[in-house]
């Protein structure tokens, strides 16, 4: 009798131990995402700000003041300058062009899908937009270089309007990045529009609104923060976009607002360094981490901002 119950007890605690071991390993899996974030921060900060390894960190060689105020980015010249402004300008020029295309068109298509389209149209359009979102960015780069510049930009802006359109230019990159983030704007904005309570639409129609009145004067303002959040996310995606920009915009750091010139973005600079034969440990190589850290901070700030905006919005309807 006694032996039996002893056995029971032992098996019981064994299975308990197993359960706990499993729970612990699942916990480790979940923790990995936090570790990844920490890893990114440590790697970037280590090489850019404080050096633990053998090499000096970037900001130990280049002052913050030079980094943020110098207007030249010439790491590969004899006369080295590390002013991030040209890269920032290039990045935001392209992100701006992309936003100019994706935000209005994406929002309009969200309104169409939410307020106007028949279910059957929606069933066709939404998967198609998903495909558009799934096209790899290297393909968009190819499209910009081989189609957008020669068949769209050159005929209109060079032959017709007399601008000088380069083979590599910010406009073509901006356009394709705009197309790339378009599905994201459209689907996130549509979610925001859909979250507007039905009662508000009914109230609007009952007051003699046209569909335009309801969409633009009632639903849109009510969904404003959700739409803002989707805009921020999309722009942050455009800022971090790499391949299309590297292929189509070229590799010339330039402090310019001319969309028909070649520019370099933060991401394409990183690609440029990693493709070249810059020796690891040199200031030039470490600059890659400084740029990556800047990029990480900008996109993170935009993401957090979008979450803040979104959580504000949730409060209104809860």
């Amino acid at each position, binding site marked *: 009798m006694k032996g039996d119950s002893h056995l029971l007890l032992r098996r019981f605690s064994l299975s308990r131990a197993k359960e706990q071991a499993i729970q612990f390993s699942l916990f480790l899996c979940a923790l990995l995402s936090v570790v990844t974030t920490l890893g990114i921060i440590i790697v970037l900060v280590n090489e850019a700000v404080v050096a633990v390894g053998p090499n000096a960190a970037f900001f130990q060689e280049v002052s913050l003041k030079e980094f943020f105020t110098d207007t030249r980015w010439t790491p590969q010249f004899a006369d080295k300058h590390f002013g991030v402004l040209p890269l920032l300008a290039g990045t935001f020029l392209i992100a701006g062009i992309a936003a100019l295309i994706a935000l209005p068109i994406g929002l309009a298509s969200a309104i169409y899908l939410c307020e106007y389209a*028949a*279910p059957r149209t929606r069933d066709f359009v939404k998967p198609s937009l998903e495909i558009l979102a799934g096209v790899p960015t290297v393909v968009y780069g190819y499209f910009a270089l081989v189609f957008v510049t020669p068949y769209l930009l050159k005929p209109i802006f060079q032959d017709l309007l007399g601008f000088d359109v380069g083979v590599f230019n910010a406009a073509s990159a901006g356009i394709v990045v705009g197309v790339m983030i378009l599905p994201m704007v459209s689907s996130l904005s549509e979610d925001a529009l859909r979250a507007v*309570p039905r*009662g*508000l*639409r*009914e*109230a*609007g*129609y*009952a*007051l*003699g*609104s*046209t569909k335009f*009145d309801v969409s633009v*004067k*009632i639903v849109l*303002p*009510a969904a404003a923060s959700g739409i803002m959040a989707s805009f921020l996310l999309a722009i942050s995606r455009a800022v971090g976009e790499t391949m299309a920009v590297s292929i189509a915009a070229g590799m010339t750091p330039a402090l310019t607002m001319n969309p028909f010139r070649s520019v370099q973005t933060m991401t394409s600079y990183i690609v440029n360094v990693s493709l070249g034969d810059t020796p690891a440990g040199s200031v030039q190589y470490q600059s890659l981490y400084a740029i990556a850290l800047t990029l990480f901070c900008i996109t993170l700030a935009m993401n957090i901002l979008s979450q803040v905006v979104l959580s504000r919005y949730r409060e*209104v309807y809860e």
Partner: protein
Amino acid sequence: MMSRLKVMPDNPPRRPQAEALKPPPETTAAPAKIETRDLSFFYGENQVLFDVSMTIRERAVTALIGPSGCGKSTFLRTINRMNDIIEGTRLTGHVSLEGIDIYAKQVDVVALRNRVGMVFQKSNPFPKSIFENVAYGPKIAGERKKKVLAEIVQRSLKRAALWEEVKDRLNDSALALSGGQQQRLCIARALATDPDVLLMDEPASALDPASTAKIEDLIFELKENYTIVIVTHNMQQASRISDQTAFFYEGRLIEMEPTTALFTKPREQRTEDYITGRFG
């Protein structure tokens, strides 16, 4: 014409003077404002209204009563074609406003809804300021003059008995108002477009007795100028405020009578069962 309609069918305790004025009303003599003929309505395959034929009199209050799910809201929403915005619905039969078939091809729904206002069961103020809520209707209709808008807002809020409570904070968010205030705001908003017909779907269902009383007073005043159709679950309320009462059961109009008649000697057994609380 007005005098015929200014009569209370029942004796609300709060209005002793009303009953003293007139003998029992002959509401049937008032001209018809809205008529439905053989109106049937379907949500997809599901038929929820069956051959409803009803005449709604001008400048009177018509109450719709009946158990939950019997189609009162659906019927009400056919009068301003609110059901049009629900996908997969179908309607047969006729609904006319002043003799014009409102489901005819050439009828402009926007114009129709401008004349037929609606107040919903659940108050639904826009997430804008009090002023913007009330000014919304006139604004989309094309009124741009600030002074005119301000006048309309003030007049509508006064008629909805809300002016005194909000006149100092017209620019505050409407969502900060209490439930009863929000409902009166929605009424003010409906009045601001100056409709001739007002459809009210259980406007007082979520309110406390004090707010309910205010809304009932309001309905009583409004019927001088408006034709009012109101859905209610509250028998006392129906008998207090309406001239005519229609009883719906499972999508059919069982009977429609002057309110006093319906509540004192219903013709149908089912009506009697319902108003005496035996079911529903």
